[in-house]
C-alpha cells in the first residue's frame, strides 16, 4: 500500500510516473532492490516497478536495521546513552555523540567549557571529512563495482580516512565508536602534540581533495553517469525536511554551522559551498568542497584551542547535580555530514537515584533524504538508482535507529 503522500504534501503531485497507459500486471516488473543488496548502503529496501529497465515507480521501505535505540535510551542514564547512539550514524559517530549530549546539556542547562567546545568542533570537522570520504568512495563502488575501478576509488578514500581514525584513536583509544563526548564536556583531553599531527594530516587531506575532484570532473564515464541524474527540486527538498549537502547542492544556502552557530563555530568565518545544479554530481562536488572547508576550519580552530577544563560536571556528580522534573524538555541540533541531526529529549523524574529520559527522539537527516527517492527514481534506469542512492548517501543505522 502506498503512503497517502498527497495528504502530507498538498502542494506536490504524486511522484510516480503516470501509470495510465500501463497495465501494472502485464507490463511492469516489480523488483525488490534490497535489503540484501550490495549497493543500497546497508539494508535499505526499494521496491521498484520497472518498464524494461526504466523505473516507473519506486517505494522505499525502511526498518530493517531497527534496533529500538530510542526506546532503549528510556532505560539508560544520560551517561550511558552516548555509546549507544554512537552506532546510529555509524560513519560519523562523533556527530551522534555531540547531538545527544548537546540536547542533554540544553535540558540540564549546562554549558560545556570553551576547551570542550573547541575539541568538539574540531572532532566534528575531522569526522565530517572522514564521513564524506566514505560517501565519495562508496559512490565510486556504486558506479564502478566492487571488482573494478570503483574499488580503486574506494580504497584511495580509505587511505585518507585511516589517517583520521589514527588521530581519533590517539585521543580516545577507539578507532570508531569513541564514547568521548559526555554531558557537559569531553571525556578525554587532547594528548600533547596532537594538534601538530592533526594539522599535518589535515594539510595532507586538503591537498589531496583535488584527486577526488578530478576523479569526478575529468572522468567522462563518471560525468555521463552522474550529470543531470536525479535533480532535486529545492522546494520539494525543503518541504520534505531534507538538509545538508543535498539541499546545498540544489542551491539552498543553509548550514547550521553558520546560520545557527553552536560549539565553537561562532568564533570562525565559515564559507558554505553551494551549487545550483542539484544533480548527483553536484552533491558529490559539494561534499568535496566541504571536505576542503572542514580541513580549513579544523586547522584554524586548532591554533586557538583554549586551555582549561574539558568538562562542566564531574562524571560522578552528574546524578543529582541538577534535579529534573517530569516533562522538562530539551532540543539541540547540529550539522552532521548528512544534514541537520537533532535530538529531542523529555525528562522523567529520577527513579531509584538514576535519571533517564522519558522520551528521546532523534531527527536523522538520512531519513528525510530517503523520502526523496519516490521523486528521484522514476524516469531513470535501474543502473541510475544505485547512483541516486549513493548520491543521497543514506546511513541506515540512523534511518532505522
Amino acid at each position, binding site marked *: 500500500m502506498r503512503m497517502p503522500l498527497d495528504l502530507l504534501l498538498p502542494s506536490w503531485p504524486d511522484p510516480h510516473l503516470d501509470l495510465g497507459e500501463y497495465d501494472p500486471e502485464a507490463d511492469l*516488473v*516489480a*523488483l*525488490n*532492490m534490497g*535489503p540484501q543488496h550490495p549497493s543500497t548502503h546497508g539494508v535499505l529496501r526499494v521496491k521498484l516497478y520497472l518498464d524494461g529497465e*526504466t523505473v516507473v515507480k519506486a517505494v522505499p521501505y525502511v526498518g530493517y536495521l531497527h534496533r529500538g535505540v530510542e526506546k532503549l535510551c528510556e532505560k539508560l542514564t544520560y551517561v550511558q546513552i552516548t555509546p549507544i547512539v554512537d552506532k546510529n550514524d555509524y560513519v560519523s559517530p562523533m556527530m551522534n555523540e555531540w547531538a545527544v549530549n548537546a540536547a542533554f546539556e540544553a535540558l540540564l542547562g549546562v554549558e560545556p567549557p570553551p576547551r570542550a567546545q573547541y575539541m568538539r568542533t574540531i572532532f566534528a570537522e575531522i569526522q565530517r571529512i572522514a564521513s564524506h570520504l566514505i560517501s565519495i568512495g562508496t559512490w565510486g563502488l556504486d558506479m564502478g563495482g566492487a571488482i573494478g575501478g570503483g574499488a580503486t576509488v574506494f580504497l584511495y578514500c580509505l587511505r585518507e580516512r585511516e589517517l583520521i581514525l589514527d588521530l581519533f584513536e590517539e585521543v580516545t583509544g577507539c578507532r570508531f565508536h569513541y564514547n568521548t563526548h559526555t554531558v557537559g564536556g569531553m571525556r578525554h583531553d587532547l594528548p600533547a602534540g596532537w594538534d601538530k599531527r592533526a594539522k599535518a594530516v589535515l594539510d595532507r587531506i586538503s591537498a589531496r581533495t583535488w584527486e577526488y575532484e578530478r576523479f569526478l570532473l575529468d572522468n567522462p564515464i563518471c560525468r555521463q553517469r552522474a550529470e543531470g541524474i536525479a535533480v532535486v527540486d529545492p522546494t520539494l527538498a525543503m518541504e520534505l525536511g531534507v538538509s545538508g549537502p543535498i539541499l546545498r547542492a540544489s542551491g539552498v544556502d543553509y548550514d547550521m554551522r553558520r546560520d545557527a552557530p553552536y560549539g565553537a563555530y561562532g568564533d570562525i568565518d565559515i564559507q558554505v559551498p553551494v551549487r545550483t545544479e542539484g544533480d548527483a554530481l553536484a552533491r558529490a562536488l559539494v561534499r568535496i568542497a566541504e571536505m576542503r572547508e572542514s580541513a580549513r576550519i579544523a586547522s584554524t580552530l586548532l591554533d586557538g584551542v583554549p586551555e582549561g577544563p574539558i568538562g562542566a560536571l564531574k562524571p560522578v556528580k552528574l546524578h543529582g547535580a541538577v534535579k529534573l522534573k517530569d516533562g522538562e524538555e530539551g532540543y539541540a541540533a547540529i550539522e552532521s555530514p548528512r544534514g541537520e541531526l537533532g535530538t529531542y529529549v523529555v525528562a522523567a523524574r529520577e527513579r531509584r537515584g538514576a535519571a533517564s529520559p522519558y522520551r528521546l527522539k532523534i531527527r536523522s537527516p538520512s531519513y528525510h533524504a530517503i523520502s526523496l527517492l519516490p521523486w528521484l527514481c522514476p524516469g531513470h534506469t535501474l543502473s541510475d538508482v544505485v547512483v541516486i542512492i549513493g548520491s543521497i548517501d543514506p546511513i541506515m543505522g540512523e534511518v532505522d535507529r
Partner: protein
Amino acid sequence: MNPYVPVAFAILIAIVFSLVFVGLSYYFGPRRPTKTKTAVYECGMPPVGTTRQRFSVKFYMVAVLFLLFDLEAVFLYPWATQYSTLLDSFPGTFVLGEMAVFLGVLFIGWFYCLKRGAFQWD
C-alpha cells in the same frame, strides 16, 4: 585430413574438461538442500510477481539492427578477402564502388534509424 577434425578435437577436449570439473564438484561437494537454500534470491525478500516477465521493445530494436548489420558484415567479408585479387582484374573504382554503393544504401537505413530515435534506449 579434413581441417575441421582438429576443431572437433578441441571442442571435444573442452567438453571433457568442463565435464570433469563439474563431475568432481558433484563427487566432492555436499548436497543438503533445504527450502530456504533453494529459494530464489531477491535481496532477501520473497520474490514479488513473476520472473517470466515482458521486456521492453528496445531489446527488439537491438536484435533487429544486429541481424541486419550482421548480414552486411557477411557480405563485407568475401569482398574484403578478395579485394586485392579483384584489383588485379578490375579497376579500383569498380571494386571500391560496388561496396561503396552497398554500404551507402545501408548507411541511409542507419541514418533513418538515427533520426527516428531507434538508437535511444533511455
